[in-house]
């Protein structure tokens, strides 16, 4: 028998929560970036679940676009991280405090 969609949606909510908490709690910029990927995956899982529940291919199409945007975002974000932290030994978000008064 099929697993009800509510279980998938609850799992996606928990995955999103873990990603959000990790983004708020961790100091390492790369781990923060990975937590953003976790949140994007939670949203993708929600879209696929609704696509199944509503029998609608649009939900799967938008997951395709989310994947493309996530790939572009990772490329640009890692480029920014490399250019900021090239001359440093660690990559914590606390080091980027040039605008601090």
């Amino acid at each position, binding site marked *: *028998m099929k*697993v009800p*969609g509510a*279980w*998938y949606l*609850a*799992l996606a*909510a*928990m*995955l999103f*929560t*873990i990603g959000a*908490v*990790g983004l*708020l*709690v*961790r100091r*390492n910029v*790369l*781990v923060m*970036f*990975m*937590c953003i*990927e*976790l949140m994007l*995956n939670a949203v*993708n*899982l929600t879209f*696929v679940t609704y*696509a*199944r529940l*509503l*029998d*609608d*291919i*649009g939900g*799967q*199409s938008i*997951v*395709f*676009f989310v*994947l*493309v*945007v*996530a*790939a*572009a*975002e*990772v*490329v*640009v974000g*890692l*480029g920014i991280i*490399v*250019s900021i*932290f090239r001359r440093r*030994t*660690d*990559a914590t978000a*606390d080091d980027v405090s040039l605008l601090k008064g």
Partner: protein
Amino acid sequence: MDWFVFTVAAVATLAGALGVVLSANPVHAALMLVMTLFAVAVLFVAQAAHFLAAVQVIVYAGAIVVLFLFVIMLLGIDKSENLRIDPLKGQRPFGVLAGLLVLGGVLLLARTTWVSGAMSVAGPISGEGSNVEKLARSLFTRYILAFEATSVLLVIAVVGAVALARRSSETPAP
């Protein structure tokens, strides 16, 4: 059988996500991320999104995590950090509290009805034909403009990454 697959994949998803957040070494976090992404791909297959599961494994677990590991090694930050010290007092309790509020809010909103709305607005999933065929038909007819826009987005991302990562060889004029 469905419940078995869902349970195993769900446990792997949550364990991997917790591993990303809790592991002190960024390399371990990246490997835990692979576990989560693969388990999400299994959940995609369980819901008949076969093409997206393949793309998930190839693009996410294959390309994006390798890119993460590449940057970790390039910057030389593949060493453990001490997670005991909390540089900003009270950040962690408030972070966990905010997360629990998000989770509680979502579950509270979804308490009565999980699904409402019109069925099959952009086209049905069930019926004749494979998942790839239906997704391709949707992408190349209904969402063709968005599909072309993503190609522009990818070109801009490549140009931006090259411009950001390049060492500025020409020094500005004095």
